[in-house]
């Protein structure tokens, strides 16, 4: 029987796949400037983004390939998150790579490949498809993390990421296997049906917890977070930005899809675990971030903490216990937060890249002293992003946190919100410390900063405008996020 394919539903993925092929072909010609490949990536991602937005506005709820691939507003909204991340990361990468004789072609190729993997994860309605997407994304990221071969730190980061990532994938696969053993299927809706009929067997519970561990590694939840700081520190800064944004969102997309759609009947079992993990993740991430002197490591711990905030949304959806409104609000708050988080976190890493000297990047927070007067634009970008990460109004970060906390109160998770709110105050300390250093301390030595690259500044302007616009008019993305619940 021939497969009936509705090509229209697959447009965003097809556009990215096509762009990938074009970049691959053009990379063969030495006469073409490699920056052109970057622009091709951006154009391709922008078209896919436009298509996704159009489809999201039209509203879809359909499956393809015998129900394995789901195109609904949820997956389309995540496509928007991934593509925005990809565009921003490519913008901040172009000047970063344009130095020395690094091969740039494969870089863009791998970024596109990882993006395709993420889109598969968000659309996967079948555990095997999710795993396929996960591996496609992860393998590309392992290479990207170790992309600067001549730099030992980068190689170490790639290696570490590969080893721990492989562990995580193994856990994940083992979880799938056990769930298959318990229910006899890997399809998300069929698992849900099977669980209604069957008892909650130990096999199923073990499979579920292995999935939590697998996702926990991928999105860097405490206590599965140890790889994150080392990888972020060693990997090229643009890739650290990329890993902290899109792939984390993709992990949460699959997390939400599988746990809310396949395992809703086990809510009692997993929502308590998520509450505990959320508290642990936020607190450990924020407290350890205080002790960091390297800005990339600080941002790594901060991104761990932010995974904790997203988990609040998941926990709220899980603990809603039959309250449909609270469940939907939990899901939409988590995806809204992921979009905001991706923009502001890439923006923060972009500001780090902007602070480059001739010998490399200035990664010590103390190097930022006096930037407020010497590099006002850079200091302003950095401050906006950090204040947003800290959750000060009127930035997007505040809106995101507010909505997350609101959804959790709606599910009556008071203690979790109190812990989250106190964590916000803790996090303000280390974010503000960078601002303090930039505006209130005098530099010990005069560092010669490289001139700004225009693409990088464009990327940062987009991020900054986005962060402030969403902060003042949240309805722009709040309503779409609320319409994206499955």
């Amino acid at each position, binding site marked *: 029987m021939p497969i009936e394919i509705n090509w229209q539903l697959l447009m965003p993925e097809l556009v990215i796949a096509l762009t990938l092929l074009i970049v691959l072909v053009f990379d063969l010609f030495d006469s073409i400037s490699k920056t052109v490949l970057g622009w091709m990536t951006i154009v391709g991602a922008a078209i896919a983004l436009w298509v996704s937005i159009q489809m999201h506005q039209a509203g879809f709820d359909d499956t393809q390939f015998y129900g394995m691939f789901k195109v609904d507003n949820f997956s389309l909204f995540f496509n928007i998150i991934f593509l925005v991340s990809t565009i921003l990361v490519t913008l901040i990468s172009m000047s970063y790579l344009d130095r020395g004789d690094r091969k740039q072609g494969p870089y863009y190729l791998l970024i596109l490949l990882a993006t395709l993997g993420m889109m598969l994860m968000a659309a996967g309605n079948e555990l095997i498809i999710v795993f396929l997407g996960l591996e496609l994304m992860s393998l590309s990221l392992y290479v990207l993390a170790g992309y600067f071969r001549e730099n030992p730190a980068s190689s170490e980061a790639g290696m570490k990421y590969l080893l721990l990532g492989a562990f995580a994938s193994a856990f994940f696969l083992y979880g799938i296997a056990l769930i298959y053993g318990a229910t006899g299927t890997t399809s998300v809706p069929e698992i849900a049906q099977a669980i209604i009929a069957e008892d909650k067997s130990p096999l199923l519970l073990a499979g579920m917890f292995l999935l939590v561990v697998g996702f926990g590694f991928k999105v860097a939840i405490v206590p599965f977070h140890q790889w994150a700081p080392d990888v972020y520190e060693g990997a090229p800064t643009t890739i650290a930005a990329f890993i902290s944004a899109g792939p984390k969102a993709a992990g949460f997309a699959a997390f939400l899809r599988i746990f809310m759609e396949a395992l809703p009947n086990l809510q009692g079992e997993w929502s308590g675990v998520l509450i505990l993990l959320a508290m642990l993740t936020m607190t450990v991430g924020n407290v350890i971030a205080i002790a960091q002197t390297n800005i990339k490591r600080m941002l790594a711990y901060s991104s761990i903490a932010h995974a904790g905030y997203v988990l609040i949304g998941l926990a709220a959806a899980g603990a809603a216990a039959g309250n449909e409104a609270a469940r939907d609000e939990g899901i939409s708050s988590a995806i809204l937060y992921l979009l905001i988080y991706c923009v502001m976190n890439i923006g923060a890493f972009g500001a780090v890249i902007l602070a480059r000297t001739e010998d490399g990047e200035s990664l010590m927070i103390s190097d930022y002293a006096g930037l*407020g*007067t010497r590099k006002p634009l850079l200091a302003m970008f950095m401050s906006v992003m950090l*204040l947003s990460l800290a959750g*000060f*109004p*009127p930035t997007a970060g*505040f809106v995101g946190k*507010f*909505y997350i*906390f*609101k959804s959790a*109160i*709606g599910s009556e998770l*008071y203690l979790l*919100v*109190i812990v989250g*709110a*106190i964590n*916000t*105050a803790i996090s*303000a*300390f280390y974010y*503000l*410390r960078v601002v*303090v250093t930039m*505006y*209130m*301390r005098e530099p010990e030595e005069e560092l010669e900063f490289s001139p700004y690259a225009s693409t990088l500044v464009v990327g940062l302007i987009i991020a900054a405008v986005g962060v402030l616009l969403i902060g003042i008019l*949240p*309805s722009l993305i*709040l*309503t779409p996020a*609320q319409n994206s619940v499955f």
Partner: protein
Amino acid sequence: MLLSTVIFLPLLGVIAIALLRGLGASAIKGIALVIGILTFVISLGLYTGFNADTATFQYITQESWISDLGISYHIGIDGISLWLVLLTTFLTPICILAAWNSVEKGLSGFMMSLLALETGMLGVFCSLDLFLFFVFWESMLIPMYFLIGIWGGERRIYATVKFVLYTMAGSALMLVGILALYFQNDNSFDLTTLSGTFDHSELLFLAFFIAFAIKVPLFPFHTWLPDAHVEAPTVGSVILAGVLLKMGTYGIIRFCLPLFPDAAEKFTPLIVPLAVIGIIYGALVAMVQPDLKKLVAYSSVSHLGFVVLGLFSKNPAGLQGSVLQMINHGLSTGALFLLVGMIYERRHSRMIVDFGGLSKRMPIFATIFAIATFSSIGLPGLNGFVGEFMILFGSFKEGAFSKVYVVFATAGVILAAVYMLWMFQRVMFGTLDKTNEGLPDLNAREIVVMLPILLFIVWIGVYPKPFLNKMEKSVGLVVTKVQATPAMGQLEKGVPAGTKLALREIQHEKSEKEAEQ
């Protein structure tokens, strides 16, 4: 529309300065001053058009903002917030003028922070939507953080981070409280529709109260205040003491008392002792300070203790006195900080031991300092007396709380006289040190800065009626709400009449005093 103009005009000034910063220092200062004065003049329209015969909110604007979450841009003022708005718009141009020559670096940033701060503070006092309130409450931290951190003294970074973290820790809990109220308010953040009794009202009360207590600051949450005050630039201290601290007491009177009367009643025995400890402790610590600015800072702890005491007396006289005392404290402590700043600019020292005999050299300065000092002590005929007297009067009334506390609080008034007069004596009288002989007296700009404050210090002291009139109905409404609790069981009948009574008794008292003189 009028109210929105007042709130956002300073923000317009921020943008104007950002765009025109290339024009040079005098242009920046000019823009800031014009915007500051214009805001004040427009805000006077709020006063003249204010209807004192009703307790409802006026100048209301309500626009849908984030409709999916039940959030609207809802602003309006009543007789309580009217005065705090006016205090803010009044002090800001004075601060701009006071900082005329004292900002050495980053003038445009300084003025932008000051104006942005004004918008934030005005927004806090005018918000009728809990979300909007929280947005202003938090966003106002950022300009203050820069004001202390960039233009402050030696330990400015420590002070500014401490200030921000204390406030954020408090507001984190308040956010939880706001969200919990949302679900009990029919999924809306509108303050005006909040009524009735709430689940977990005691926890909600605490969530709000702790945030406000940190801001006030109530003992034992006060430790950020001396640091912030001492390290802040003069103008920062004026705004901090003049307006920011009032956001705490305003929060108590706007949220804690009317929304959770039962809980307020229950926690009164806990809060009142803290307020009294703050009064005595602040006064005692102020007494031994060698640093003028620190002395004034600790006197704030003491004065704000009175305000909290009056609020929890829960009767018209006490509450009116508290609101009046918020304004009084803004004026007198603002004046003191300005004066300390002026002497610091001349001598580059704030240590009391470095001075002595200044009255011979600087008669104008000494005179103005004397008036501000007497106002702070609460000398009859000046503003401080009216406020403190009403607070103590209200606290002494039946049904407020144990009179032992009031006795101790009254002792605080005497202590205030001790530390303020002792300080005045050491600075102004005695032998003039050689190094101080060359100190010039106040110049015309500085006199212009001080005169408006002095005018109001005397005005409120002699004729407080217009001030009390406008707030009477609104305070009465709060009193009705807070006493409408079954637990109290001693609902006073005819509250507005009671208010009038309190006023009459005070005026009677005053005329007697005047007759004696």
